[in-house]
């Protein structure tokens, strides 16, 4: 287990050494969203359901900041390690494949949690966001982070250039997050957009986190958690498979 502990430490060290890039920048951009969308649009859109608009968008923005960080961190850490070939130091070490998967997953999760906690503190101060269901919130965030941290690993392992990692981030994850109900309730969407929202996995994650914070959700919390879990488990298993077989990691 010593190897696993040191790999976790290494991945955490990378996040902390680059904290302005890995934590501060995403926190600032999410806060700008809260200020620009919440406080300016909040003057026009007073409430969504029974919730003030600036409070309504906080859970989605925290989710968005966290999942993007989890994905980006792990995609870049593993791609960099492959590109510079210092991953060989880990691959040749007496570590089990699950140590490697778990160790490399941790960095993204730590970074996402640092962002999430910072945003939560700021959101409590600025708009007094409540936490109605802490257990469901913790579960939703855990599942979401496992999903996106694992996806980051998989993409970082398959990527052949830096562009591949940013392509998935910008063309897949970011749009799905934006249309996943971060800024609105799908109740206001006309058909077929409302129905189409239900095939967006990020929609379920945003709603489960929103339920944890506000006690309100567009769909059942258990359905949201089940969908997120149904994606997180195979994503982690996929990353584990790559480390077990050495596919794309070993020639």
């Amino acid at each position, binding site marked *: 287990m*010593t*190897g696993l*502990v*040191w*790999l976790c*430490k*290494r991945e955490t*060290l*990378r996040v902390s*050494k*680059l904290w302005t890039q890995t934590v501060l920048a995403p926190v600032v951009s999410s806060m700008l969203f809260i200020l620009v969308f919440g406080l300016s649009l909040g003057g026009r859109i007073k409430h969504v359901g029974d919730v003030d608009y600036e409070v309504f968008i906080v859970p989605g923005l925290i989710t968005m900041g966290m999942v993007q960080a989890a994905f980006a961190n792990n995609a870049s850490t593993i791609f*960099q*390690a492959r590109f*510079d*070939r*210092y991953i*060989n*130091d*880990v*691959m*040749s*070490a*007496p*570590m*089990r494949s699950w140590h490697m998967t778990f160790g490399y997953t941790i960095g993204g999760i730590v970074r996402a949690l640092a962002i999430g906690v910072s945003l939560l503190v700021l959101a409590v101060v600025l708009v007094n966001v409540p936490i109605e269901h802490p257990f469901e919130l913790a579960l939703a965030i855990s599942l979401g982070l496992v999903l996106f941290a694992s996806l980051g690993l998989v993409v970082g392992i398959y990527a052949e250039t830096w562009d591949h990692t940013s392509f998935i981030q910008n063309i897949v994850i970011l749009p799905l997050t934006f249309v996943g109900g971060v800024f609105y309730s799908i109740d206001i969407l006309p058909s077929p957009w409302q129905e189409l929202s239900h095939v967006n996995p990020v929609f379920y994650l945003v709603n489960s986190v929103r339920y944890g914070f506000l006690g309100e959700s567009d769909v059942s919390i258990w359905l949201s958690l089940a969908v997120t879990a149904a994606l997180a488990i195979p994503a982690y298993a996929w990353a584990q498979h790559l480390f077990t*077989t*050495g596919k794309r990691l*070993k*020639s």
Partner: protein
Amino acid sequence: MFRDPAPALQLSGLTKRYDDGTLALEDFNLEIHSGAFFGLLGPNGAGKTTLISAVCNLLRITEGEVLVFGEPHDTLKARSWVGLAEQDINLDRFLTVRETLEYHGGYFGMDKDEIEGRAEEMIQAFGLTSKRDVRAPKLSGGQRRRLLLARALMHRPRLVILDEPTAGVDFELRQELWAYIRQLHSEGTTILLTTHYLDEAEFLCEEIALIRDGHLIARDSADGLREHFGVTRLEDVYVKAMAS
């Protein structure tokens, strides 16, 4: 000096075919006894780095078996016995000299107290004291090469694999690295060295294997190879072996 009865390295029927169809090693057999200083010579593309990568679990073997001191090479025990300094500089860009050594020790299961002492020992032995808190990308080429070797030796491996360790280094550093490697060997460590420098192989290695196109052409001491090929210089052995 204690010599392990099991060979330090035993390759049986080792075959590696890459995904693009290139056959890098074919039915390769080799045994290196414990405590040996063994040299592997061959042109680019002969299969030297493939062989090393196979031993160090850095590629997927197509067929065959690799044993390290009698243990299958992919077991945790066997992995902990091998130290590798690769041909290309592959240092973690986020870590300082000291961290590079400490994290390597951690990955290889050393405990914290042992790590601290050994890292300091390696830093001093390789003349990196003034650079201990400098990140790898800020080191000079020679310092990086030293750190690479220090990292390979950090966990006190029983089998040290050096893939062209002196490629592109200046005369002084080459002499320094030679001295350190020889000292290491005199302490009982088994060394497998690949090199393009024939003088290096002759000066350091007790036994030399010549490989070409994934096959073993010959193996013997430098004198034995000269005698076998009927020539007086190792360069001529090399030329004859590669042309045969």
